[in-house]
């Protein structure tokens, strides 16, 4: 081995060792304990696939999956539509462009837990007053206390924070489009909508893909904002999968069981990401 290639191994191997110790080993121990009845302490026995079978009969787990998916898909769509619109706006010839860009990025600098607490106050105190004043029934009590509407509050707060980051990615994409394309389209008399659908959107296809994948993956892990807004309630109406794993695993003595849940969740996330990447990239190629 030459001196230089030895050095390259010395650069990479310590990081690999740390990564395996702190990431891969926990992942594998987790998989191992998912086949046991380990409570997080004390003795344990192998139970085979029992944990996995029980998951599919557990209403709390099933409802956390349906809540998480409903929430994550809705928020991903909302965030990407609004962020794309906002990016187009911030890329247009507006006054104070830099200042506006700086301002719209602020939510991303703040901790979503704290944002959640602030919005919790708005949802439970300010909005009901507005609802009463406007005579809107469903808005005149706190939507966070309403089993059917609480999830929308979580969508709103998550979107408020996440749009900032997506806008920046879309702006980066918009800047890669050469201005000549628009000049040519303008000469041909193409409408604004036509320019968007034939030039802008296809040209930022890769940014759309990456935004959709990152958003969905992020929202599927939602935890902080839910703790701050509803803490899973009312009842267990807004418990996300991450929250069920946390509560069951740390507080409920369900270590082995929740590890089975984690393994299933991992498979779901990988499957969703792969499907998403495949379909979106095929679309990209079609343009």
């Amino acid at each position, binding site marked *: 081995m030459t001196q230089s290639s030895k050095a390259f191994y010395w650069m990479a191997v310590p990081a690999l060792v740390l990564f395996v110790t702190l990431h891969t080993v926990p992942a594998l121990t987790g998989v191992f304990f998912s086949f046991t009845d380990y409570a997080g302490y004390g003795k344990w026995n192998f139970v085979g696939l029992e944990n996995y079978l029980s998951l599919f009969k557990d209403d709390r787990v099933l409802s956390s999956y349906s809540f998480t998916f409903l929430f994550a898909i809705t928020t991903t769509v909302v965030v990407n539509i609004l962020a794309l619109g906002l990016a187009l*706006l911030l890329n247009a010839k507006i006054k104070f462009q830099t200042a506006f860009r700086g301002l719209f990025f602020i939510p991303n600098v703040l901790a979503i837990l704290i944002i959640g607490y602030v919005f919790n106050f708005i949802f439970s105190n300010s909005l009901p007053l507005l609802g009463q004043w406007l005579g809107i029934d469903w808005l005149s009590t706190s939507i966070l206390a309403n089993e059917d509407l609480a999830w929308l509050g979580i969508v709103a707060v998550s979107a408020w924070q996440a749009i900032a980051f997506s806008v920046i990615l879309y702006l980066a994409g918009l800047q890669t489009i050469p201005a000549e394309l628009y000049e040519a389209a303008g000469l041909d008399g193409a409408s604004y909508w036509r320019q968007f659908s034939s030039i802008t959107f296809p040209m930022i296809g890769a940014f759309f893909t990456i935004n959709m994948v990152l958003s969905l993956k992020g929202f599927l892990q939602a935890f902080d904002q839910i703790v701050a807004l509803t803490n899973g309630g009312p009842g267990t109406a807004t418990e996300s999968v991450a929250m069920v794993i946390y509560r069951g695993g740390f507080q409920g003595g369900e270590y082995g069981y929740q590890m089975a849940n984690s393994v299933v969740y991992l498979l779901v996330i990988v499957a969703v990401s792969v499907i998403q990447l495949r379909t979106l990239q095929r679309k990209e190629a079609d343009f």
Partner: protein
Amino acid sequence: MTRTTDTPATVRPVTEQRRSPRRGRLSGGVNWPLTALAAVLALTVLIPLYLTVVTALKTPDQLGGSGFEWPTRIRLENFSDAWNLTNFPRALLVSAIVTVGAVVLTILSNSLVAYAIARNLHKPFFKFLYYFFVAALFVPFPIIMLPATKEMAVLGLDNPVGLFLLYTVYGLSFNVFVYTAFIHSIPRELEEAATMDGASTWGIFRRIIFPLLTPMNATVGILTCLWAWNDFLLPLVILSDPAARTLPLAQYVFQSQFNTNYTVAFASYLMAMAPLLLVYLFAQRWVISGVMRGSIK
């Protein structure tokens, strides 16, 4: 004096001047309706911030209305109460240690690993390493949360040091991805010439590659800083000593103890948000261009 020794402050007026005639010509092109729209939409960001500030200044008896009323009497003791009740200086110190530790260690180590991988992708070991790290992007923390927490406790790393070590290691997946893309754009001729002059691989990294990575280091540093400063779940499960809490964790504990004490709570939120918000206000251009750079690579 050459251009490179000019400070940014002296460069900026020159470019502004050069640009201004062109801008003047286009000033008819400013889209005022869209500017107005942007201003209206900006309220969605500003109103919650306004609410945080006014609530933090009020006395509890002024909380009755919608919350948006201007405070009639200002109670600055909210801040001193929050300062004491959340042990603010302590939480600030812990957050600072975790964030600075994570940023410094991430930039130094992750760039090094990425350099080794980027220059050896033709070797099976490094190719495997690359895909191994990037594949871990699909393994979100909640999935390994239970065993990782147990392991950190066994290793005696359930403290701020362990926490920034975790940010450094868990950041590898994404950072290796962006760093290697950037390193591929650096011509190898530089390194070959340095090798001819007798420089070692470590020396090349330290003197040539690392300085060239500066824009990417900024991007990775900014993203790591935002993550480590604002994260809640990792500190919640890893930090076992109640005396060592990060700022978001301190807000959570405070909220669970005094959940109706809104005025003091909001003062506390404001103090927890302020440090990074202040840094951002001064460095916003730089932060935004840094984040954009990360997405183009």
